[in-house]
């Protein structure tokens, strides 16, 4: 059940030119409300903006006196710019836990495929399956990379990709995914988050190798709880589902990739 929670920022770090990482004291959102990585928090960003901003959870850990939650976000507009200006000690009004998160267990052998700001929500799955999973992380260029050491610590293998060749494999994450699956397709699932064209290519690749694939989607969102029906995504069966309530994580086969 989601609740309204006032969270204190414990640490606020800048990861690169656009990305920020905050650790929040989040009441008992993890222990009592069951918050986990891959779900999101709907965060009030200042007084001047009407809508909250949905920010995905990278890590969620029960702790005392308050649970600790790590969020990573990029400055995309006015709201996230306000958020980026917050400092340790300041408080945030959040609604959460919201959304479903990935379906996976600690014994799973996962292929985590992230692109850009789609990388952070996968960190919690790397932590959950500590030492079992392989991560393929793609960035526009080396300067935009983030959380690389966090993934290296938690994953069995880490593969970096960049669009311009300035970091790791020069190419797209689905191409690296294909190389990996050609050698070994014995994975429980591919979990992916990133821009929609990337997700489509990742979903196609996973399908070709017969590996189940879950994707975390984005859409312009208002209420965040499923009341306004704003954040619709089209499903392959012609119905609409909603990122905030039915997602953000969907089975890749459910999604209509042709729209």
């Amino acid at each position, binding site marked *: 059940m989601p609740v309204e929670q006032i969270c204190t920022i414990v640490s606020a770090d800048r990861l690169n030119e656009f990305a920020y990482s905050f650790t929040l004291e989040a009441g008992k959102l993890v222990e009592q409300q069951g918050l986990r990585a891959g779900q999101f928090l709907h965060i009030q960003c200042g007084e001047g903006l009407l809508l909250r901003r949905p920010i995905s959870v990278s890590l969620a850990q029960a702790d005392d006196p308050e649970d600790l939650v790590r969020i990573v976000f990029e400055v995309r507009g006015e709201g996230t710019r306000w958020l980026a200006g917050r400092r340790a000690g300041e408080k945030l009004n959040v609604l959460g836990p919201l959304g479903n998160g990935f379906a996976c267990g600690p014994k799973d052998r996962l292929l985590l495929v992230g692109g850009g700001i789609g990388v952070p929500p996968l960190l919690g799955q790397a932590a959950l399956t500590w030492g079992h999973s392989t991560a393929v992380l793609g960035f526009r260029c080396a300067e935009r990379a983030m959380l690389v050491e966090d993934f290296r610590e938690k994953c069995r293998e880490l593969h970096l990709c960049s669009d311009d060749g300035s970091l790791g494999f020069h190419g797209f994450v689905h191409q690296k995914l294909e190389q990996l699956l050609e050698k070994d397709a014995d994975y429980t699932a591919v979990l992916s988050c990133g821009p929609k064209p990337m997700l489509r290519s990742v979903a196609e690749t996973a399908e070709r190798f017969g590996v189940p694939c879950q994707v975390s989607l984005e859409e312009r969102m*208002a209420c965040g709880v499923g009341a306004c029906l704003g954040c619709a995504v089209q499903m392959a069966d012609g119905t609409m589902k909603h990122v905030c309530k039915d997602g953000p994580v969907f089975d890749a086969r459910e999604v209509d990739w042709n729209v």
Partner: protein
Amino acid sequence: MSKTVDLSVELAGVRLKNPVLVASGTFGFGREYGEFYDLSELGGICAKGLTPARREGNPPPRIAETPMGILNSVGLQNPGVDAFIAHELPELRKHDLAVVANISGNTPEEYGEMCEKLSEAGVDLIEVNISCPNVKAGGLAYGTRPEMAAEVTQIAKHHASVPVMVKLSPNVTDVTEIARAVEGAGADAVSLINTLRGMRIDVNTHRPILKMNTGGLSGPAVLPVAVRMVWEVANAVKIPILGMGGVAKAEDAAQLMLAGATAVAVGTACFADPFTPIKVRDGLAALAETQGLERVSDLTGAVQPW
């Protein structure tokens, strides 16, 4: 909450324990916000707009934020009137609040058919939507022409055995003309305003944000328009008014009541703060008490224009 001020009001014969409802399309069927608090806190709910059959609504993006507002082009996504009666109404009935069913049809007959079903199912009030800016047929077409608005109202009244409230569009030259037409056709109340048509364009891609290009504007930005239109309609008709449009705090609700609204609905503000309706209710009570009023209904129409 104040114990000295009487918060109850009567809207078209329906007794509301407090004058704060939630607006159609912003609160689903109550399930989601019902996780944050007991829906019995509300005076009533105008449920998500219904159509005879299930509708998937418009393609995304459906939401664009604007200065102190949002544009939406949801397009009446809903499970259909039968699914509402079977699955949603029984859930809502577990709580102590007025249930207002909001309906949209493609033809006057569709409105009639839904009125019959919903009356039989026992909703408290039917809100006839003739003002949705996001669907091609029906909707706004009925809401901008007095004779068509009257025709739909007449048919709804003929088939309904519960009070009928007609939801008016602000996208007209003279809202009083439509209000008078639906009053003449037998409407028991009117609700206003629906959203104002608007548009937002991404200057980098030269594309509108909304896939439907245009949408309906709601949120604090529209409050002054709502206050003005409620005032105009209150001066033009005798039937009660459910006022809505940009209510985010008690003072906003009080403005709509002073302008002539019997009750108010909170909409978009819930997206920012789910607890808004409760805060508005308590704030209204406090405001009435400060002003020495015995009943919050004393605010209705009490504006003293220059």
